[in-house]
């Protein structure tokens, strides 16, 4: 699916304000991912072209950052903090709960395409550990028992 006019306009705008267009690489990828959920090879190639980069160059950048998704993700991305404070407060159990409820391991997407489960570094919510983030919404003070209700909100 080719980049649409809206995406092209945003990438060009981002590129214009940089001393060199490739300076906008990360923001451009984020902008496209915001709309498409992930960055396919085809999308990557097109963004690269707009930025005057080769696919190799842009992929080198894209694969560095853990929040640029180079594989399809579900409708909702669940980022489970596995850093130290959350670990102390039981993130392993929380993740275990998610795994059983969703029937997937970290890195996987539910067969219905609803959730992708990923580990994440400290979310800066250590005062509400264990915490997770779904689509940018932070949820703290969790335990496995609270998961059912929480997931309900994400259809």
């Amino acid at each position, binding site marked *: 699916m080719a980049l649409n006019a809206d995406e092209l306009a945003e990438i060009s705008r981002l590129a214009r304000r940089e*001393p060199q267009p490739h300076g906008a690489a990360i923001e451009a990828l984020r902008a496209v991912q915001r709309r498409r959920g992930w960055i396919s*090879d085809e999308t990557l190639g097109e963004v690269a072209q707009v930025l005057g980069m*080769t696919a*190799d160059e842009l*992929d*080198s950048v894209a694969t560095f950052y853990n929040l640029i998704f180079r594989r399809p993700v579900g409708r909702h991305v669940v980022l489970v903090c596995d850093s130290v404070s959350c670990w102390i407060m039981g993130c392993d159990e929380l993740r275990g709960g998610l795994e059983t409820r969703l029937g997937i391991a970290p890195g996987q997407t539910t067969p219905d395409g609803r959730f992708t489960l990923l580990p994440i570094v400290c979310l800066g919510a250590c005062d509400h550990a264990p915490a997770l983030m779904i689509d940018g919404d932070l949820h703290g003070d969790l335990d496995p028992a609270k998961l059912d209700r929480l997931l309900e909100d994400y259809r």
Partner: protein
Amino acid sequence: MEMTVQISIDGRAVTVAAGDNLLRACLSLGYDLPYFCWHPALGSVGACRQCAVKQIHGDGDRRSGRIVMACMTPVAEGMRIAIADPEARAFRAGVIEWLMTNHPHDCPVCPEGGECHLQDMTVMTGHVRRRYRFTKRTFRNQYLGPFLQHEMNRCIACYRCVRFYRDYAGGRDFDVFATHRDVYFGRHADGVLDSEFAGNLAEICPTGVFTDKPLETDYARKWDLRGAPSLCVHCGLGCNTTVNARAGRLRRVLNRYHPAVNGYFLCDRGRFGHGFTTSGQRLRAPLLRGRPVPPDQALARISDILAQGTAIGIGSPRASLEANFALRHLVGPANFHLGLPAAEARQMAAIRRITAGPVTIAPISEAERADAVLVLGEDLPNTAPRLALALRQAVREGSFVFAETLGIPRWHEAAVRTAAQPVRSPLIVATPAATRLDDVAARAARLAPDDIARLGFAIAHALDGGAPAVPGLPADLAALAEDAARALAEAHRPLVVTGTGCASSAVIEAAANITLALHRRGRPGARFHPVVPACNSQGLALMGGRSLDDALAALAAGTAETLIALETDLYRCAAAADVDTALAAARHVIVLDQVRTPTTDRADIILPAAAFAEADGTLVSNEGRAQRFVQAFVPAGAIRESWRWLRDAGIAAGRPDFAGWTGLDEVTAACAHHLPDMAAIVGAAPPASFRIAGARIAREPSRTSGRTALAAEISVHEAKPPDDPDTPLAFTMEGYYGPMPPALLPYAWAPGWNSVQAINKFQQEVGGDLLGGPPGCRLIEPRPDATASYGGGVPAAFAARAGQWLIVPMHEVFGSDELSRLAPAVAERVPAPYLALADGDAARLGLGEGDAVILELAGASLSLTARIGLGLPGGLAGLFPALPALPAWGIVAKGSALA
């Protein structure tokens, strides 16, 4: 005078170059300090942490010291460092231990084994015992094209490959992916690596991630390979190579460091073009009317022929001076002709006029340091790739100067790149079509050859009003001329590059005017570089001879009965019809060559000529540097060096003057004697009589194995090794190996240094001059007081013609060179014949990229594919492969010729 500082290393006081980094200083002094990410041509980035030493503070003991990375530490007066410090040692061993946690230890099946920098550094650090007991990470490999094998599991993530491929060579289809210990070096997707310098990865990679793929089909270990110092024969630059052979077959070509020429790098044409020597086109036996005959029979026949009447010779820009001279001597100077197309001969003459002037020809090393460069008419990445690579570095000159103002030394690679992101020295390229150097050019103009010449004349005029002006120059070109003139005038080391690439002597004349104008403006640092097509074009031009047209005319008119053509395919030099006529008229056609060509197909007698690795001889490069190439092995069959065939023919014909030519030295000396311009060539390398400690130099390393087993199915005895009357090298492992004149260095090897980086031990300082001085000798030096005057042949502006196109030559790094294209690996990279058209012209003809197109040219009709997007000006079309008679007007139409 170079500034130096005193430092102490392990308690020893030493003097090192000021401004250097510690690693290079230590290596130059001969210390064995291990390293990976550093490379003399790539600078320091401090990634691998292998070069750790202890820096001791004040006059304290070693406890007051701290570990520093030698490559990232500038030397400073009074600095005290310890390489032998136990803590530094343990850390260095630790670095290897870390690298080994993921390395597969597959040395026995790894092609790099035995010449692996990682092996060397492992031994050097003393790491022997593995403590890591967990799983290793593993990767999938990629298909990268015909030149390189990829084995990522061996990677130690030194980042050299990306730094070379991208930062140094400008390739953009290769990169590093992912993070932490998963970093992956390769392409975004499987596919052929674009860069014509990709092959250098085989040498740049310190272990076996990127290896020479053609070698792997006919593999031998370094210690089993016989080596010889050789030269690349695939363009005019004269890059120094090491050729490796075993069991009578040439196996690979490696870079041979030359500080002024190729430094550490070759292009892939040079590295992989050698495959022509084992290709199906190879000639191995004398042929009499297509029938193999013993050499004596062929020679007897030739002696009969020579007795019958006048023979004329056509020499070759891809044959050695000795071979050309032998032919000239056999047929007599009056009957010696240059195997150059008429137009090329005119261009070579134009180049002669500049080189006879007051401006020095830049060796590649000086081109690399030029601070303003003008390229007129030359598609360098395709016609002189190694020079293009140098200019890619020259563009960075300004950034080094800028970084220096911030106190950042030149070797601090990443910091220079960061600090000087927008700063570039000017490179101005004017060519008919886009070039792969344009991405770093300040200006890239697409012009017809005549307009390139006009631009050049205008630049000269802008530099010096005394140079002829260009009437009617359009405003944009006039402005470009002003800019270019200013850039050149403001530079300390301006460089003008031109050559035969766009087949225009006017372009060269214009470049001549610019060099002269720079000289008149008092620019002693100004340099010039002429790009010529073949490995001995300059040598042949210096030798001199009549034109090819004369030869063809003489044959056609019957004033000469016999033609002896030396290593040349006449069909690449003149219109087919003219060659056909001349060959049909000749009574006897004798051709010496390495491979079958359309010309050998018309010959009565074919003599199989030795290829570069099978022969010795002297070649003269673009730069005017005479260099010697040395035979690596004696080929099977009746193959002989061309000069030997010609000598033997002379002897067979009863010519007493040939009897004295017992070895190469006598031929070289005769050539030097008869041709004053060549007097110096005897000094290009030591003579055959040269001995070190009474011994010849061994071509084979002492560890060569299985030499009595090599032909055990035929004989269990070792055959008597061949004698070498031509060079001071022996074909066996018996002989000397150690410090020696670099022109003789058969391979680089030193205790503890088995990889190509052993060259460190043969340099005065790492990355600097060779011990024993640079090989070869320059035959063309400037004449500062030459009373050169400006040329005035300003052509008229290019005018497009309705319904016709001016066809200009297009060059391809893989495909334009006659011999390398026969190498199977290179053949895979040769594009299909094409016609490049201006976008607008293509649109008008209804042509898209890759469409079939017919070109009517000089009465012939060629079926080609269309290429667009190369920026050609309207009315111009570029033909690949080029024909000898270009530029010429042709007619272009959509479609393909009748099937």
